[in-house]
């Protein structure tokens, strides 16, 4: 029985290797697609170019304040800011060439400096936005708020003319409750004194106005300090899962086709049990899948520097998923009727599972309800498991959970297949 078992596995592998097209389809194509997805989602690759938000600035004020705002926005890493006229800016946003356009109106600098101390007569910055890019516009607004606060408060407090003007306004007391006036005058006088001291000591920063009172340090949270998340890791995991499922389908469909050929009679005439036949098919398919996974991630390692943080975990998850793929094929061979119809249904099921499993786009993008549901989909265990061992820093223990889930599922498929498989005299 073992002789037959190993001979059948050998046969399957020889046939697979013999079919150049199959080899390319199952190894080359996923590598190409995964490379493409990885490139698209790669945040390190083009964070300096494509992923900056294009913003247009219309400066109708042309004051010291508006120029300071423009300068600050120009230095923002997240923005790709260019000056533009109002008409052109609106047009560009409408055509989707910019996420938003900001218009600083005439007199903004002076009005804003005054409004800093009074909750009224606030000037407006118009934000013309692309309705499809709400999230980006929100981000732009946040950045602009910071820049405006810095520029305006700086101008209001360090520019002698502005301080004197504000002081005169406060003392004259127009439109201001009397209990506010006293403290405000005191404050402005204090500012004037600070500025005078700063002027006497060149090289020291002046009172300076407000600045954002903190800075942010970005660090990607990955397996260990300094281990870099690599979008190729996820895309390779996703595409490997998808194409290995396709490979599993192909093995199942091939068995359905074989049923229609004389070979089936030959196999059934031999003293060969269905257990041996199915086990050998599962073993060969799992072996081939496992090798494909290793080849794919070997490629990702060499070309895209995807480093697998937990190699044992990777091997365990890969082996479990390979088994799942193989038994998925058996199940198709067992319950399928005609090869053509079965292929259609199987591919549909696989694509759904792959999509919901997060192989195309990560599951965290899904709505919460969908995320909940996808927790029960084995492809998600596979994708998350691979992500986990590659860069999320799963230890072997954490890797065993998805691996056990996948193996259980594979066992279920295998049992169903053995149960439903039509083999003995028909």
């Amino acid at each position, binding site marked *: 029985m073992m*002789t037959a078992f190993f*001979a059948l596995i050998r*046969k399957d592998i020889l046939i697979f290797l013999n079919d150049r097209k199959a080899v390319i389809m199952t190894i080359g194509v996923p590598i190409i697609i995964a490379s493409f997805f990885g490139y698209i989602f790669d945040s390190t690759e083009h964070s300096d170019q494509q992923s900056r938000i294009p913003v247009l600035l219309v400066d109708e004020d042309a004051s010291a304040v508006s120029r300071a705002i423009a300068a600050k926005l120009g230095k923002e890493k997240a923005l790709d800011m260019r000056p533009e006229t109002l008409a052109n800016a609106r047009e560009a946003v409408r055509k989707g060439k910019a996420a938003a356009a900001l218009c600083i109106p005439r007199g903004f600098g002076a009005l804003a400096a005054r409004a800093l101390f009074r909750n009224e007569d606030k000037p407006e910055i118009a934000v013309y936005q692309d309705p499809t890019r709400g999230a980006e516009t929100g981000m732009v607004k946040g950045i602009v708020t910071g820049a405006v606060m810095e520029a305006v408060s700086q101008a209001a407090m360090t520019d002698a003319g502005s301080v004197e003007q504000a002081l005169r306004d406060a003392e004259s007391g127009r439109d201001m409750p009397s209990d506010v006036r006293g403290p405000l005058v005191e404050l402005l006088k204090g500012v004037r004194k600070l500025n005078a001291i700063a002027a006497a000591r060149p090289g020291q920063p002046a009172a300076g106005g407000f600045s954002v009172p903190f800075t942010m340090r970005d660090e990607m949270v990955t397996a260990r300090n300094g281990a870099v998340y690599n979008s190729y890791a996820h895309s390779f995991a996703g595409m490997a899962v998808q194409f290995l499922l396709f490979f599993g389908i192909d093995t199942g469909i091939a068995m359905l086709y074989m049923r229609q*050929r004389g070979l089936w009679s030959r196999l059934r*005439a031999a003293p060969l049990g269905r257990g041996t036949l199915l086990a050998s098919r599962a073993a060969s398919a799992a072996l081939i899948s496992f090798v494909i996974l290793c080849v794919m991630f070997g490629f990702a390692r060499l070309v895209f520097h995807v480093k697998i943080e937990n190699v044992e975990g990777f091997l365990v998850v890969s082996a479990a998923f390979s088994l799942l793929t193989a038994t998925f094929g058996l199940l198709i061979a067992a319950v399928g009727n005609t090869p053509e119809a079965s292929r259609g249904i199987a591919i549909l099921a696989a694509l759904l599972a792959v999509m919901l499993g997060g192989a195309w786009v990560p599951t965290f993008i899904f709505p919460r309800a969908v995320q909940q549901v996808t927790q029960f989909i084995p492809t998600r265990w596979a994708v998350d498991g691979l992500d986990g061992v590659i860069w999320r820093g799963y230890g072997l223990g954490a890797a065993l959970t998805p691996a056990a889930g996948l193996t259980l599922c594979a066992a279920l498929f295998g049992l169903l297949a053995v149960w439903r498989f039509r083999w003995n005299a028909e």
Partner: protein
Amino acid sequence: MLEASHLKKSFGELKAVEDVSISAGPGEIVGLLGPNGAGKTTTVSMIAGLTVPDAGEVLVNGAPPRKQQIGLAPQDLALYEELPARENLRLFGALYGLGGRALDEAVKGALELVGLAGRAGGRVSHYSGGMKRRLNLAAALLHDPQVLLLDEPTVGVDPQSRNAIFENLLALKARGKSLIYTTHYMEEAERLCDRLTIVDQGKVMASGAPDELYRLLPAANLVSIDLETPERPLDLGELSGKEGVRTAERVNGVLKVGVTDLARDVPGVLGWLTAHGHSCRHIASERASLESVFLMLTGRSLRDQ
């Protein structure tokens, strides 16, 4: 010794095999003859254990057969086209538990028997049709089965390869194997088989050695006579009443007379014609064939239906 008795198999309404019995002793080639759809493959499948008969039983040496005892060369080529011939044979041998040296020798022996030893490394998809047929046969021999079931092993095979296959089968017969050979080529069956079973629409029409089957025919020879004056009337009744004449009919102006013994009976027929004022333009005789046996048994010709 293979004995299959009273096999029956229906597929839904269709009675594919109604009551077929067939047996083959050691060193015997038994032909299973019949037109397309007669139930030959279904019968062979039941013997091979691929199809469960609705009724009847199959015995090899008096007991239900073990798969090891039977070698099947299916009607549809049963080969992995993607693999070299040798890999095919190694796999099929391994399915019967052969390994190591035993497998090497079985593969070598089978390849030599079918004359493919020189091409064993080539992919089957690059083989000619006749070579595939021969390999298909070789694959059934690896485990040295007692009973060989050959389902149309010569379909699409050129005469040369066919002769090669026949030689192989005779060699197996000489080694004491029991062979069942299905075909719808009567001349093959006549040449090769010790005994024949003729089936049609799932039923056995006749069974026996070729000579026994010929004896079923009213006449062993058919004499065709072209008359000089075909339009002149002829008393066929009187002619058929003559000693030695079994049948007499006119087909398209040609007189066809069935006789048992040419030397003894033909002079009488010619004398009778002369006596009635007929002269012969041309005379030909043909030996009765299994084809005519089949025609007589079923009223239909074996081919082209």
